[in-house]
């Protein structure tokens, strides 16, 4: 079997995840797209492990570790999303812009901005 089949599939899954992270507004959909990207990376790890027939099974063990880290990430991420929803009653990521950098195009400067020396 040519290595190109799984590797190309992994690259396409990763790109679909990149598109989803950048294009979606809903924070939960962004988390789903992150899962797709992690799965692309996992497929690469497993493929290279099988291809090199590693004695230490580094690729598959690392894929298992990535799955565990993804589970932890989803747990913490969903807790953060639910906290944001409780405080703001929205989880649209492009309407949460209180912490963005103020520029001149926004009109007046914020009141608490310090004067330049």
């Amino acid at each position, binding site marked *: 079997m040519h290595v190109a089949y799984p590797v190309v599939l992994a*690259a396409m899954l*990763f790109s679909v995840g990149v598109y989803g992270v950048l294009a979606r507004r*809903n924070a939960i959909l962004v988390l789903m797209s992150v*899962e797709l990207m992690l799965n692309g990376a996992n497929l690469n790890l497993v493929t290279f492990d099988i291809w090199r027939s590693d004695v230490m099974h580094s690729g*598959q*063990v690392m894929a298992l570790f990535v799955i565990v880290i993804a589970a932890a990430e989803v747990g*913490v991420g969903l807790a953060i999303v639910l906290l944001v929803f409780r405080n703001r009653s929205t989880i649209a990521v*492009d309407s949460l812009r209180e912490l963005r950098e103020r520029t001149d195009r926004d009109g007046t400067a914020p009141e608490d901005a310090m004067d330049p020396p």
Partner: protein
Amino acid sequence: MTGVEIAFVLLGIVALSSAVLVVTTTQLVHAALWLVVSLGALAGCYLLLSAELVAWVQVLIYVGAVVVLLLFGIMLTRAPIGPSTDLDSGNRLAAFAVGLGTAGTLVTVLLTGLRHAYFHLGDNPGTGTARSLGDAIFRYWVLPFEVLSVLLLAALVGAIVLSRTNIGRVAAPEDDSASEQRGRR
């Protein structure tokens, strides 16, 4: 093409098209259900690559736990049932360009780098079974395994702390007096 390659291509088409549906569908719950299809097809790909344990762990943790967590999140954020129009932000075209660029770059680099890379799946049987992977984990990868368990514990404690609502007023009055007495003693 051998039979394994044909099966892999078919499963890959299923996984990729359902992944595309995850990022393009207008119904939030359908996105989670298409994610199940995509991750399940990917588990089939792992099985074809003779990585049994990773495939079953994928089914257990991703399809079983992560998607259920995501569905809980959808439910708790009061997502609308049915199609909603505001799931995509205004920079869809830029995101499409970036995704296309990523795909083009990655596929080009990987295909030029791995042009003559073949593997034969029957060469070393039993390479992805639970026995061999367990040997590898508990012989070579014990320390990362333990560190990862601590990380998982820390993440779960963090999630509980984040989702608690009564931080700051946990101490009831009788607890206060009790701790004061303990402090005096």
